C-alpha cells in the first residue's frame, strides 16, 4: 500500500478517459518530461488498481498492448441490453401483408400483390416468417408453384386470439375506418385553436396515427425513443 494515491488515480483516470488499452509507455507519457514514473512504479500502481476492482463491476485486464479496464464478464448479460436494438415499427406494407394473410389464407404472394396493387418485398415475408407469425402451408399448383402462406398459432397467441374467428369482421373494420376519420377530424379541429408554445424540454406532439404507418427511419426513431425515455 505504498503506492502513491495520485499515481494510481491518474492511471485510473487515464484508462477510463481513453476507453482503450494503454501501454506502459503511453501511461508514462502522461507525465511531464523528467517526472515520469518508472515502469516498476506504474506496474505497482496498476496492481493496486487491479486489487481495488475486486468485487466490482469492472476489472483491470492486461492484454498484449498494455492494460485496459473492462466490464466483468459476469455482468455482460445486463450490460448487453444497452445495445439491444430498439424495436422500430413495422412498415405499412408489412402490416397489410400480414392482414391479408390472416384474412385470406392460404394465399400466395402473387395474390397479395394483386390486392395491394404493389409488389411485396421478399424481406417482408422473411420478417413475418422469422417472427413465426406466418408459415408456408403448401404450394399452389400453377407455374412456379408459389408458396401458400397462412398464419400460425404464435400469431394467434401474440394477438390474444383463440382462433381466427375472433378477428374483427370486415364490417367492423369498415366501421374502424369511419371512427378513424372522425378521430382525425376531431384532432384537426382541436389543434386549430391551439397556439400554446411547447415548453422547453417538451417533446413535439406525436403524429397522427397514419403518420406512424410510414416506413420508419430506424435511426431517428431510436433517438426519439431515447429522448422520450429520458423525459419520463
Amino acid at each position, binding site marked *: 500500500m505504498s503506492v502513491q494515491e495520485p499515481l494510481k488515480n491518474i492511471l485510473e483516470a487515464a484508462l*477510463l478517459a481513453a*476507453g482503450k488499452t494503454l501501454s506502459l509507455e503511453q501511461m508514462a507519457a502522461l507525465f511531464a518530461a523528467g517526472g515520469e514514473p518508472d515502469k516498476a512504479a506504474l506496474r505497482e500502481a496498476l496492481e493496486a488498481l487491479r486489487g481495488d476492482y475486486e468485487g466490482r463491476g469492472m476489472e483491470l485486464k492486461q492484454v498484449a498492448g498494455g492494460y485496459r479496464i473492462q466490464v466483468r464478464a459476469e455482468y455482460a448479460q445486463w450490460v448487453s441490453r444497452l445495445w439491444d*436494438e430498439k424495436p422500430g415499427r413495422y412498415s405499412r406494407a408489412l402490416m*397489410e401483408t400480414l392482414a391479408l394473410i390472416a384474412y385470406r389464407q392460404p394465399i400466395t404472394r402473387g395474390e397479395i400483390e394483386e*390486392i395491394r396493387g404493389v409488389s411485396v418485398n421478399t424481406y417482408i415475408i422473411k420478417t413475418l416468417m422469422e417472427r413465426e407469425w406466418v408459415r408456408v402451408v403448401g404450394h399452389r399448383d400453377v407455374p412456379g408453384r408459389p408458396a*401458400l402462406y397462412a398464419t400460425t398459432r404464435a400469431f394467434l397467441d401474440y394477438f390474444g386470439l383463440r*382462433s381466427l374467428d375472433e378477428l*374483427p369482421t370486415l364490417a367492423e373494420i369498415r366501421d*374502424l375506418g369511419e371512427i378513424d376519420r372522425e378521430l382525425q377530424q376531431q384532432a384537426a379541429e382541436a389543434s386549430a385553436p391551439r397556439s400554446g408554445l411547447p415548453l422547453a424540454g417538451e417533446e413535439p406532439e406525436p403524429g397522427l396515427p397514419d403518420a406512424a404507418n410510414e416506413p420508419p427511419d430506424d435511426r431517428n426513431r431510436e433517438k426519439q425513443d431515447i429522448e422520450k425515455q429520458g423525459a419520463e
Partner: protein
Amino acid sequence: MSDSPGALEQAPPVDGGGVPLAVVRGEPQFELPEDLYIPPDALEVFLDAFEGPLDLLLYLIRRQNLDILDIPIASITRQYMEYVELMRELRLELAAEYLVMAAMLAEIKSRMLLPRPVSEEEESEDPRAELIRRLQEYERFKQAAEEIEALPRLGRDVFQAVIAFPDRQVRQCQPDVGLDELMRALHEVLRRADLFSSHHVEKETLSVRERMASVLERLDGEGFTEFTRLFDLAEGRMGAVVTFIAVLELVKESLIELVQSDNFAPIHVRARSAA
C-alpha cells in the same frame, strides 16, 4: 477635457477644488484616467474583439472605471466616433449597427445640451436612460456567456469514462404490434382494393380459412391422405362442417384433389402441388 455638458451634470461643486471631471462611485475625479483616450492604432487591435456597438460602448465606459450610470456622454461619443471613423479609414466592413449607435449617441448628446424644463421633470426622461438600459441588458448576458464559457465542459475539463466491453452480445428486439394496427392496415388495403363491396370476401368465415390452411399444411408433400383422417371427431359436428367446407373450398381453388378409385371406395386427398 472640456466636456462641459457631462461635467455640468456629473460634477457637484466641491469646495476648494474646482470642477471634478466625473464622479465615480460617489468619489469626485479631478484627473483624467490615463487610459481614457485610446490611441487609434490600439483600436485596430480591438477591431475584431467587439461584439457590436454595445460591446464597444461598454468597453469605453469600463476603461474609465465608470459605472454605466455615469456615462460622460460627450467624451464617450467622441471616442466612439473615432473608432467608427477608423473603421471607415481602414475600409473595414462596418456593420450598420455601429452607425445607428453613432446617430443615437449624437442625439443623446444634443438633447443633453438643451436645458431641461424643470416643471415637467416627470415627463422628460433622461435621454441616456434607454441607452443605459440596453447596456445593462447586454452586459448581463455578456457576463453570463463568460460564465457559461467557464463551466466545466465535457471533453475539455471533464472526461467521460468509458471501458471496454469484450463480452457484448447483440440482441434484436422485435416491434410490438397492436391488433388495432393490423386492422387499420387491413382497412386501408381493402379500401384501396375496393373489396368492401365484394360479397365474395364479406361472407367468408375465417374459421374456414383457418381450416383450409391447416388441411393444406397436413397434406403438403405427404402424398395421398385418407379423406376421413382430415376430420377430428373431438371437434364435433361444427368442426366436421368447417373441415368439409374447407375441403370443398380447397377443391374449388384447385389447391387439392380428391381421388376415389372405385365407387364407395375410400376417398383420398392430396395437395395439387404435391403431384
